[in-house]
């Protein structure tokens, strides 16, 4: 194929793509605009080429785009992201955007190509699905409250029964109800998080005290692990006591779950310049490099033989990360396959 032919072919692919494909120069001025972009934004190519991309953007997003353009100029990859842009008629559309560099013959970055896909329908479906899960989970709570209460009374009554099988069955019944309650609360937390409705009940919290209690509980879970807690000197930190406990509990139980041969789980708290850092280290199976960035995503589960035997719906770390962000804190992981993982949680002393 001749160069000219190749160029013609490429241009035709770009032109007929349903995705919006737009190029801008380093000052964010539009240099090309395909048919997909005309459909998405409502502007004809001849109307917008030479004008800034800001024309179709919400003012609040402009600073973010400038940062992303600067990253690309510095050869830093910008991950695919979601944003909202403006149609000519004023309607807002939810988009998924991929930015990549446009280079001249010498390889220097001379512009940015932005490929955008309309995800408004997908967003709406996600929202409907979340709403359905929220309503269904809420409706499940009432019968589950009743079952839990009846089981609690039964448990007390069978305590002194001579027939131990009945007592043991009621105990199992109670455990299964607890599992169901846990599942419902996980689903509700995840939908509240997605809808931005996770409300925090902030109070000064003694993190070391919470962890000490969780460590005691965790010791009962496994006799093959030795759980070590190095408590640093901490001031009380503003946080939601229940949710932070849930976060740390999740990280500790993951550490136990994913180190099936036993060994140490080391929990350390220390004070940083601006807050508190909690780390939880295990010497288990670790996380494959390719999956590290995905583990905080929704419904994600590590693909391995061990993981397949574990229960769960892949929402634990998604909720954990959401709760940390809601606190103005963060979560990240260092991990080597076969050697183990360390999860770090940070919480600021002031979350304003």
């Amino acid at each position: 194929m001749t160069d000219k032919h190749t160029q013609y072919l490429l241009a035709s692919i770009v032109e007929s793509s349903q995705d919006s494909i737009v190029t801008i120069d380093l000052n964010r001025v539009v240099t090309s605009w395909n048919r997909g972009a005309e459909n998405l934004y409502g502007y004809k190519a001849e109307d917008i080429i030479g004008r800034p991309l800001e024309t179709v953007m919400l003012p609040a997003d402009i600073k973010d785009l400038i940062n992303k353009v600067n990253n690309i100029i510095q050869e830093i990859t910008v991950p695919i992201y979601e944003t909202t842009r403006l149609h000519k008629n004023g309607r807002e559309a939810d988009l998924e955007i991929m930015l990549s560099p446009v280079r001249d013959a010498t390889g220097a970055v001379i512009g940015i190509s932005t490929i955008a896909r309309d995800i408004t329908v997908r967003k709406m479906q996600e929202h409907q699905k979340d709403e359905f899960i929220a309503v269904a989970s809420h409706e499940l709570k009432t019968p589950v409250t009743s079952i839990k209460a009846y089981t609690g009374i039964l448990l007390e009554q069978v305590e002194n029964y001579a027939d131990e099988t009945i007592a043991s069955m009621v105990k199992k019944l109670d455990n299964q109800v607890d599992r169901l309650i846990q599942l419902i609360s996980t689903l509700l937390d995840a939908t509240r998080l997605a809808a931005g409705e996770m409300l925090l009940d902030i109070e000064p919290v003694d993190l070391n005290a919470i962890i000490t209690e969780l460590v005691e509980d965790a010791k009962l879970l496994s006799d093959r692990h030795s759980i070590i807690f190095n408590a640093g000197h901490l001031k009380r930190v503003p946080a939601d006591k229940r949710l932070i406990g849930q976060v740390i509990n999740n990280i500790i139980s993951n550490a136990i779950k994913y180190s099936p041969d036993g060994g140490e789980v080391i929990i350390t708290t220390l004070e940083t310049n601006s807050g508190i850092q909690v780390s939880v280290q295990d010497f288990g199976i670790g996380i494959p490099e390719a999956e590290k960035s995905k583990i905080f995503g929704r419904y994600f589960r590590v693909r391995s033989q061990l993981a397949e035997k574990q229960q769960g719906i892949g929402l634990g770390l998604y909720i954990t990360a959401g709760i940390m962000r809601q606190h103005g804190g963060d979560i990240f992981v260092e991990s080597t396959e076969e050697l183990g993982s360390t999860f770090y949680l940070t919480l600021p002393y002031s979350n304003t």
Partner: protein
Amino acid sequence: MIKTIIIIEDDPAIVEPMTIALKNSGYFVITYFSGERILNNDFVPPDIFIIDKQLPMVDGLDICRHLKQNEKTMHIPVIMVSATPIKTLAKHAMADDALEKPFTIKQLRDIVAMHLIK
């Protein structure tokens, strides 16, 4: 002196185990399926109220407000119960405490005992 509890909750499958659990702890329990008698001031004041938020006709929070605005009942502890997060709403309605469904009978007994001691 046996302490009296009024439970206002419209779901029989919740009222029954709550009543049994509290009776087993030695309380005298009266149950209403709505807040009608409360709003008409047609009841003998108990030592504590347990009120579900979602009730037919009148919201449980409004019943709580009614009790807290009435001189004869404002000193009686009210515990609000709901399947949705209710702490803040309960505080605004002047309730003394809140319990989110699902709860264990231990949590129910503890919260009642705590407010009866005060």
